[in-house]
Structures are given as structure tokens and as C-alpha cells.
């Protein structure tokens, strides 16, 4: 059972990859097939393995990621 649930404001993502690099459990990846309106590849994550640590959200320069912890 995943501990965290991520929500992305995809249109604000600039595909910088910082979240991908700093996720401690390495579950985030750039979706090469999907672009947002600005032409950046959006980020997806393995929804089963998220530990809800919010490192990705903290490191994101554009406040794209909202993190909820599953009780």
C-alpha cells in the first residue's frame, strides 16, 4: 500500500527533472510521450511505491506537486 499520493499541476511543469533526481525511492520518471502546453515532458510516478516523503514537492521550483499522505 503506497503511503503517499501525488497530484501534478502539469501545465506548470517545466520538465527540469529535479524531482526525478531527488526522489529517494527513484519512482519518478519523465513521460517521453506526453507534453504539456508549453512543450515540456510531464512527470509521472509509480503510484504504488510512493512513500509520501514530499522531497519531490519540496525540491520542485514551480510548486507543481501536491503530496497527500494516505492514512
Amino acid at each position: 500500500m503506497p503511503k503517499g499520493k501525488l497530484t501534478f499541476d502539469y501545465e506548470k511543469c517545466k520538465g527540469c527533472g529535479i524531482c526525478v533526481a531527488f526522489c529517494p525511492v527513484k519512482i519518478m520518471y519523465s513521460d517521453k510521450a506526453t507534453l504539456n502546453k508549453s512543450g515540456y515532458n510531464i512527470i509521472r510516478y509509480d503510484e504504488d511505491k510512493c512513500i509520501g516523503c514530499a522531497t519531490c514537492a519540496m525540491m520542485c521550483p514551480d510548486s507543481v506537486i501536491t503530496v497527500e499522505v494516505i492514512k
Partner: protein
Amino acid sequence: MELEMKYQKTKGLTDNPLSYCPGCTHGIIHKLVAESLEELGVLDHTVGIASVGCSVFSYQFFNADMEQAAHGRACAVATGVKRIHPDNVVFTYQGDGDLASIGIAETIHAANRGENITVIFVNNAIYGMTGGQMAPTSLIGQKTTTSQSGRNVLQHGNPIKISEMFQHIDGVAYLERVSVFNPKQVRNAKKAIKKAFQYQIEKKGFTMVEILSTCPVNWGKTPVDALKWVEESMVPVFPLQLFKDSGVSHE
């Protein structure tokens, strides 16, 4: 399945998308400033001073009343605002070109007068907005559009150490140099920024946080490599440390 909010966008930022390049840590620093103001409950009586540089549009991003200052004059503008509204929280958000080059006199004298303001000094060792020119904080050997074979001491002098200089100014109540190149640093930077605002609220005097930041595009690095460069190349020149925490009441 019951969900509890752990991390969400701060109300200290407006909904305007940030104008910064992908991976630029201006964005992280904006969040830390905005979160601090929100958590301290002072947003509704804060006046921020936007400087000129990449963060020139910060008046669109911080969810507070703002004034746009001329290049280098943010600390003078902040002085004017704070003297008129001493109970408002007043901060400037300045890059290294704005603060360490054209605006150094205004910044030094605001500090020396002990102006009860908070200065957020974003040091990314380059002029970003104008396309990558050498800044007073550019490192020796750093290639920029105005030091194309690398900064050299003979022609360009050494990187200027703002925090080292300011620690000797009596009016300074709190001064720390931090960075945001990894989660641990981001947490530490948040603490420093929040403390600086806290000291201002307690009228302790001039507070400043220097934050080593990235410029992926003008450094010619990926956002993640740029973070590494801060750690490996900038920190040795600009050590992360607490320079001054007087904690002494200003009254």
C-alpha cells in the same frame, strides 16, 4: 482511504506561473520566502521589494503588496517603505548583480543603519536576465559572456564575499549563507529565511540571508548538474555558514 495534506503550494505565492528557466532555484527560494511569510502570518502586512534581474517579476509572484525598485536600489526603496510603516514586514529579493554590484552601497548603508528589513540575496554567480554576463560573484575561471576565457584575478578581481563583509556591520542582527542544492540544504535555508523574518518582526535590525542558487541556462548545465556545481564549485568559494546571530534586541 483517508488522505491528509502533507505538502501543497503556499498561499504566499500567487497563481501566476513563475517566469524562471526550467530548474532555476529562484523558484525554490520564492517558495521558502512565501512559506515563511505565510507561516508567520504576516502576508497581509508585508511589502516586498522586487529588484531588477531574473527576479524582476517577483512582484507578480509574491502574494503581498510589492514595489518594483530600480536596479540596485531595492534596499533604499525598502528603507522608505519601512520608515513609513515600521510595523509592516518589509523584504527585498535581490540577485548578485542587483545587490553585490550596482546596489552594494544601498545595501551596505541599509545594513549600517540597522534598517529593520530582511534581504533575500540570491547569489548565482552570473547575470541571468541579460544573458549570462560575469557578476561580482562569478568564480575565478568561470566562463561568461563577458569573461569568455574565464574570469581571471588580474583583469576581473576575485569573487566578492558579501556575507563575509556584512558580518562586520554592527546594524546586522542576523546573517547566514545557505543554499538549496539538495533537500537538506533546502530545509536549512527555510529555517534561516524564517528566522530572518522572525528577527525583523522582533525589531532586531537588519537581517540578510545569502542563498547560493543556480543558473542552468547561462551556466550551460542541466538543472541537476547545476545543483551539483553549486555544491562542488561555489560552496568552496562561498562557505555555507551562520555569520551573525546577534539575537540582541534592537529596542
